[in-house]
C-alpha cells in the first residue's frame, strides 16, 4: 500500500503539537488521545488514522494530487514505536512515577518533531539496529 508523504509530514506535525501539549500540561487525557491515534494507525493503517483522514479530506484537496508516494509500512512501523512510548508515558502519569511519564512523552515528541521538521525516517534509522540487537540477544 502507498501513502502520500505530505500526509505523513502533516500527521507528524499534529502529533508534535499534541505531544507538546501533553508534556506542557502533564494531562494524561491528552497523551491518551495521542496513544489512541497511534493505535488506530497501527491497526488500520496510517491512511485511516484520524490524522490521515483529516489530511485526505481537508488538506489534500487544497494541495492537489501527490507528486510521489511511499510505502505504507515504514510510517506504520514508526506509529507502532510511537504507541509503545505513549503507552509507557501513560503508565508513568497514571500509576507513577511522574518522571517516567515525562521522559517517555519527551522521547515520542523528539521523534515526531524530527520527522515533522526534518523528514527524519525513524524506521530507517532504528529498525535495522533493533533487528541486530534482537538477533544478537537470541544467539548470545
Amino acid at each position, binding site marked *: 500500500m502507498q501513502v502520500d*508523504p505530505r500526509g505523513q509530514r502533516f500527521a507528524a506535525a499534529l502529533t508534535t503539537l499534541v505531544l*507538546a501539549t501533553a*508534556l*506542557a*500540561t*502533564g494531562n494524561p487525557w491528552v497523551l491518551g488521545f495521542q496513544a489512541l491515534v497511534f493505535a488506530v494507525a497501527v491497526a488500520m493503517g496510517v491512511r485511516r488514522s484520524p490524522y490521515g483522514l483529516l489530511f485526505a479530506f481537508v488538506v489534500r484537496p487544497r494541495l492537489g494530487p501527490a507528486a510521489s508516494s*511511499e*510505502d505504507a*509500512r*515504514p*510510517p506504520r*512501523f514508526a506509529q507502532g514505536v510511537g504507541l509503545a512510548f505513549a503507552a509507557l508515558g501513560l503508565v508513568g502519569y497514571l500509576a507513577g512515577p*511522574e*518522571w517516567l511519564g*515525562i*521522559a517517555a*512523552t*519527551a522521547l515520542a*515528541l*523528539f521523534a515526531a*518533531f*524530527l520527522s515533522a*521538521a*526534518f523528514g*527524519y*525516517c525513524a*524506521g*530507517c*534509522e532504528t*529498525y*535495522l*539496529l533493533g*533487528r*541486530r540487537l534482537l*538477533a*544478537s540477544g537470541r544467539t548470545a
Partner: protein
Amino acid sequence: MDLPGVVVLATTLLLATVAGLVWRRGLGRFRAPAPPRGRAVPTGGRWTVHRRESTPGEGEDMAGSDEDTAVGVLTAEDIGAALGERATLVQFSTAFCQPCRATRRILGEVADMVGGVAHVEVDAESRLDLVRRLDILRTPTVLVLDASGRVVRRAGGQPRKPDVIAAIGAAVS
C-alpha cells in the same frame, strides 16, 4: 501547567533541532570507511581493548573461514552478485525504509550511465552477518567498492547523484 514538563518540553525541542540539523548534514555523504576499531574482548574475566590491525586476511569473528574475510573487502559471494568491472555500488535496504526506493533509482541510473559499474541491492534483514561485519546501522547504506571489492567509500542515507559519481571516481582512480 506542569513546570517540569515545560522545562523538558523546551529542552526536547532544542535537542531535537540540533539532532535534526546534524542528521541532515551527514545524510548521504560519502566518506572513506573508518579504519578497524579497537574492540572490547573479555579476557581472563577482565575487559581489555584489542586494537585490530587491518592485515588483509585477518579473520572476522562473525565469519566462518579465516581467509578472505577482511572487514573492508567484499566478494561476489558475499553480495550474491558479480562485482562490477570497475566499481560496484552495494546498497543495503530494508522494507521499513522509504528513501531506499529513491536510492535504488539513483544508483541504478548511475550504473546505467557509467560503464563497468554494477549496482547490487542487499536485503539487510536477511544478511545480518554482513550487516554486523560492516557495522551497518541504518538504511539505506551505500558502499562503493573498487574493482577488487575493497570498500573505498561509504554513505548512510539517500545520496545525491553527483556525490555517487564522485565516489565512483575515487574507486576507479
